[in-house]
């Protein structure tokens, strides 16, 4: 096993564990960022340079910051004592996850066909990715553009404060409860 | 309609002119290189009090140890002990006159309440000391400064004070002269009336 792979895997998994298990949600978000960086480094290790850089740009630069904003906007950042962090049925959840993991690992271990050498390192230039995106993958790209536009509008509408016409309902600032 | 961004360009030109101009014409520079040169304090500047004397630093102090300033001082930084002669009779001059200017808050009340124009506000500001305690506790001999010094730092105010003091002195002399004249001739003389408005 390659030591670089091992280190990156440990960092990634430690970050992932922290991201789901820590009490303070801001710590969770920061651990998530560590995981994203670890996965990007794994992509780079695999020779997928473009994907790794996009991973950092999108996940660390945008998604992690978005999550942090959401945590602060919903005031989930200050972990109060006595408020349960885990749900009542956490045993079932853990069991499900463990079962899934066991199934996947069993499937992987029992597939001898997977044990093959990697072909020579691919020489994939950014130019080729761009050309592919503009020829072979053009339709998915256009659909993706449409999806992102729709997402942007949808997210803005969802998060916009509703102004009910009629009776003056409590707005977000006034608060429904003290 | 003005072109968008023209205001930014105007501002940039202005600052560029300042930048270049400060190298070409040194008179644009507004800063004074302080320890080497310093600006004279403005005439109405004031910070800590001092005692005024005429002629002699010890005997000529105008202070009569009446302790009005000591009582009025809000942070109570003035300490006065009057001089006594051998028999214990209080004399009209201070034996101890201390001001702790590390406590003083520069309010000028002492100077305002003094009926003898004996305590005035100084403009000396380079008062840094290395010791933490005591170095800023000024004694009588540190506080005593000549009337000439006072005239130099506050010319207008000092002229007023001098005029007032001269008037008082003249009035007293006239009164004394009148008393003498009255003692000489019991009928009295209306002569001092002319002296009342100098």
């Amino acid at each position, binding site marked *: *096993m*390659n030591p670089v*792979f091992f280190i990156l*895997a440990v960092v990634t998994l430690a970050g*992932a564990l922290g*991201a*789901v298990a820590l009490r303070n*949600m801001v710590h*969770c*978000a920061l651990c*998530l960022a560590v*995981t*994203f960086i670890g*996965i990007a480094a*794994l*992509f780079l290790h*695999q020779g*997928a340079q473009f*994907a790794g850089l*996009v991973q950092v740009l*999108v*996940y660390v630069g945008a*998604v992690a910051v*978005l*999550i942090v*904003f*959401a945590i602060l*906007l*919903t005031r*989930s950042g200050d972990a109060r004592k006595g408020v*349960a962090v885990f*749900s009542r*049925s*956490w045993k079932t*959840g*853990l069991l499900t*996850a*463990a079962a*899934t993991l066991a199934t*996947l*690992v069993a499937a*992987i271990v029992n597939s001898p066909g*997977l*044990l*093959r050498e*990697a*072909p020579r390192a691919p020489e*994939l230039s950014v130019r080729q990715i761009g050309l*592919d*995106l503009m020829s072979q*993958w053009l339709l*998915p790209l256009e659909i*993706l553009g449409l*999806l992102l536009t729709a997402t942007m509008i949808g*997210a*803005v509408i969802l*998060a916009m*404060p*509703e102004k009910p016409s009629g009776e003056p309902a409590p707005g977000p600032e006034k608060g*429904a409860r003290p | 309609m003005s072109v968008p961004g023209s205001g930014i360009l105007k501002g940039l030109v202005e600052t560029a002119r300042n930048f270049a101009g400060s190298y070409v014409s040194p008179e644009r520079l507004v800063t004074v290189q302080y320890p080497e040169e310093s600006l004279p304090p403005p005439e109405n500047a004031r910070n800590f009090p001092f005692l005024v004397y005429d002629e002699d630093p010890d005997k000529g102090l105008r202070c009569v140890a009446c302790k009005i300033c000591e009582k009025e001082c809000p942070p109570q930084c003035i300490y006065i002990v009057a001089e006594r002669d051998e028999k214990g009779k209080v004399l009209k001059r201070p034996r101890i006159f201390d001001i702790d200017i590390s406590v003083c808050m520069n309010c000028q009340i002492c100077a305002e309440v003094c009926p003898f124009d004996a305590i005035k506000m100084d403009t000396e500001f380079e008062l840094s000391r290395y010791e933490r305690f005591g170095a800023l506790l000024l004694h009588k001999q540190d506080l005593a400064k000549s009337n000439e010094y006072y005239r130099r730092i506050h010319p207008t105010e000092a002229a007023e004070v001098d005029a007032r003091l001269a008037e008082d002195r003249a009035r007293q002399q006239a009164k004394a002269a009148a008393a003498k004249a009255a003692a000489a001739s019991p009928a009295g003389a209306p002569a001092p009336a002319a002296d009342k408005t100098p």
Partner: protein
Amino acid sequence: MTPLPYWLILSSILFAIGLAGCLVRRNAIMVLIGIELMLNAANLNFIAFWRYGSGAEAAHGIMFVLFAIAIAAAETAVGLALVIALYRLRRTVQVDEADALKADDKPR
């Protein structure tokens, strides 16, 4: 070079951690974090299979990852908007407290 099964096991563990986080935590944002982890595990698989597969010259694996990243970003944006809307409506983001089918008038 690390054999392929190691990559797959790594991504399986990542997927399981994400799933556990998704099922175990009460906070809706934490559920989203779990989903992100699972998506990243899938991306890791795409890249591993692309690298060890026969068609490494074609950029198919990369393309899958790029599209998955874009869609995951969209999913996060909408998900977090939903969470914020939920918080505005109910003053809570705990998923087990948001159990009414209809926004009732009395605040919880």
